[in-house]
């Protein structure tokens, strides 16, 4: 038997011994063309720790996975021996309605959570753009939707977290009270860490009461400058919109700017905003996330006041690259999605936009061959410190290696 086969056999034996459900990886488990040898299905934090300890003993690379809705996001992992599927960590959430907090295991879906909370007239004010997303996956990718303008993103709503490090250490930070400054906030570090620091096992969130009313209004804007002016006026309006969104289906079309008003007297407050622009057809309840399965999905982050320049830059760069982009997103927060068809021109487009804007452009998802030809994360500040954090928490570089900024 070869050395590799031998060590694989030993790893399998160790994994089997811990009493956690493990199955062999199949074609359906592939991540960016890499097939994991095993898939572990732990049912508790202790079981995650047992899996990770066993993995540590055999130098296995581990990739945590939730609903699998965003597994194609980010660059492909360098290696992936074991998929740690959190699907079975889905015990009934512990909802303390009187305290407006909920604690949920990583595998609970955001829909299930929302359903439970709605029964008490409450919600986690985090718009989840895709069906099937779990608590763990939403945190790991820091996905947020339109209402980030008012409520912030996952990091702002998370008040406690339980994580398991690569060596099986279970660590908690925060707690189950909203106001709490005891110790470092590991939740901030793990939110948006793409599985590279450890496994998120459990999270506690602050909740909000479901708004009494909810009204979207929409305007049309002939060009990016008009759209920017409208966005600025809505953002500053004392009707206090919860969201100010933009949609630009293609560079030849006009833009739609919409705003969400929530709370008491939402109708009246929304009506008061109508004179700000030319009314347009109402968008659906939540502007949809583009289906990015075949195309490329990018995220543009710019200061809101640079919106018009950024949009024009995107238009021009796309035209030169022979691409037709759809741009939409949280305009007042300066976070926009760009959906593009999968096309050779992608990497040229990305470098052209990066060179011109005062902001960041991230390639969230793209078909693998295109992804390999570019740096999906682009430049960032503080990379040295980020590497040092990674080295301390995962010295063996076994957690989702290669998926994050700077090849972390």
């Amino acid at each position, binding site marked *: 038997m070869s050395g590799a086969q031998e060590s694989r056999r030993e790893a399998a034996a160790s994994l089997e011994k811990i009493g956690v459900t493990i199955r062999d990886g199949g074609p359906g488990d592939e991540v960016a063309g890499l097939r994991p040898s095993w898939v572990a299905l732990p049912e508790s934090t202790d079981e995650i720790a047992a899996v990770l300890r066993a993995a540590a003993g055999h130098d296995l690379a581990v990739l945590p996975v939730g609903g699998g809705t965003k597994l194609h996001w980010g660059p492909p992992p360098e290696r992936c021996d074991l998929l740690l599927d959190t699907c079975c960590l889905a015990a009934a959430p512990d909802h*303390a309605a*009187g*305290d*407006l907090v909920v604690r949920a295991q990583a595998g609970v879906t955001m829909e299930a959570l929302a359903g439970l909370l709605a029964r008490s*007239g409450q919600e986690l004010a985090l718009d989840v753009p895709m069906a099937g997303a779990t608590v763990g996956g939403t945190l790991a990718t820091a996905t947020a939707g339109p209402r980030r303008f008012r409520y*912030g993103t996952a*990091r*702002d709503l998370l008040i406690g977290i339980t994580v398991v490090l690569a060596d099986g*250490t*279970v660590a*908690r*930070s925060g*707690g*189950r*009270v*909203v*106001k*709490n*400054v*005891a*110790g*470092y*906030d*590991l939740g*901030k*570090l793990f*939110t948006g*860490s793409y599985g590279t*620091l450890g496994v998120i096992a459990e999270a506690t969130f602050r909740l909000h*009461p*479901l708004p009494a009313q909810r009204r979207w209004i929409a305007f049309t804007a002939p060009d990016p400058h008009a759209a920017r002016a409208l966005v*600025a006026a809505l953002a500053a309006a*004392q*009707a*206090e919109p919860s969201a100010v969104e933009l949609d630009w289906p293609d560079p030849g079309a006009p833009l739609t700017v919409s705003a969400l008003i929530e*709370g*008491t*007297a939402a109708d*009246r*407050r929304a009506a008061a905003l109508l004179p700000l622009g030319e009314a347009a057809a109402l968008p659906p309840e939540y502007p949809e996330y583009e289906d990015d399965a075949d195309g490329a999905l990018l995220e543009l982050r710019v*200061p809101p*006041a640079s919106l018009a320049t950024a949009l024009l830059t995107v238009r021009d760069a796309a035209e030169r690259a022979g691409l037709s982009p759809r741009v939409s997103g949280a305009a007042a927060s*300066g976070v926009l999605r760009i959906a593009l068809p999968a096309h050779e021109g992608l990497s040229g487009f990305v470098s052209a936009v990066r060179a011109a804007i005062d902001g*960041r452009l991230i390639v969230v998802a793209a078909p693998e061959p295109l992804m390999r030809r570019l740096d999906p*994360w682009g430049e*960032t*500040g*503080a*990379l*040295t*410190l980020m590497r*040092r*954090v990674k*080295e*301390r*928490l995962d*010295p*063996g570089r076994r957690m989702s290696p290669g998926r*994050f900024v*700077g090849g972390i």
Partner: protein
Amino acid sequence: MTEMADVLPGRLAGVLGADAVITDPVRLRTYECDGLTYHRATPGVVVLPETAEQVAAVVRLCNEYGVPFVARGAGTGLSGGALPRTDGVLLVTSRMRRIVEIDLPNRRAVVEPGVTNLAITEAVRDQGYYYAPDPSSQQVCSIGGNVAENSGGAHCLKYGFTVNHVEALEIVTPDGDIVTLDTRDPGYDLAGAFVGSEGTLGVTTKITVRLSRTPESVITLLAAFRDVETGGLAVSRIIAEGIVPAAIEMMDALAIEAAEAAVRCGYPQGAAAVLIVELDGPAAEVAGQFAAVTRICEESGSFELRTADGPEERAAIWKGRKSAFAAVGRISPAYIVQDGVVPRTALPRVLAGIDRLSAEHGIRVANVFHAGDGNLHPLVLFDDAEPGAGERAELVSARILDLCVENGGSITGEHGVGVDKARYMPRMFSKDDLDTMQLVRCAFDPRGLSNPGKVFPTPRLCGEVPGVRKGVHPLVASGKAEQF
């Protein structure tokens, strides 16, 4: 520490100029404590840098000599976070007070760390904006200190804490590099990790804060109750109706008595508890909430309700609450300000527990708290002239924290751990929790020079070379350290 005394001040003066380096023992004493005055230490040397480059130069010198450094803002901290080291450098930000940029189109301001919290709001108020986190110390405390403590304020129930309003930080790392941590950058949220780290991950030299729009309408209510329980009931019902007030504050009979003695706030006669509820936002929304809160308070047994919708009337309502900490000085020679948190629904149970502790030990406790989020500030009163009273007060104060932890809460809601509560951290966190947090510390500050001895009860050995190490660590082999 002869180098400290002989060589370092001269080198520091070489970098900063002699007028920015204090070694005179009398002047050094000004800096020996923060707002928690019973922890004192005279700093080895005090420096007053004016720029990030100077801060970095100071930190590099500290590294060269292996000397610890402590950052200090306004020194209003209540957990001894800015307690200096006799063997170290105290880096005071009082000369870094420029508002670098106000950028209203992007709703942000860029400021140096020594700028006071209130100065930011004052700079943008006329244009209809403000900086939301509002610690009661906002007239004096520095934004750098706010970042280090993740400070809150009465209005954080609705608007959140410092961390929710910081977009980017420029920091000097513990090894002397100037680095920007921007929440918009891809990668780990290091700005989020830095906020609240109490000066143990470096010194912040520039802060980009988010500005908020001044609400269209603000209404403040004062409701008087015959006892704390009914006041607490009103709070629960307000929350249960789906209202998130900007603030809900409560004071008990003893706290009211103290405030009356100190500032004659003129709260309703016979009130054993007062509730201050502030509603803000769009006028139409506030009007609806106001009607609901009024009804709830009346139904819950409030015997007098006052309303303020102008600045003066509002100030009159807040006067008693805002003076409460200092006011207890009128009714007690000495006191300890405690800061604990409990889930809001546990408030009645915990307040009853505090009453029992108070009776059992013969120590009076005045309660002032942010009722909306369960953040208690019990004021533990004692006479320092009475033998043993200080110890009994300490004990009561510690037992209150136990009550908070037992009820699922926290040992600190806003004042921080500092030097004061490091020993309580193991009551809330396991060894693994604390060790993991300290891995982050090791990433930023492997030599442990940045504000050592704060937050964590036992420092963790960072080891020399992070990364994949095979075999035994040399220190472990030599018996000098345990493997971690």
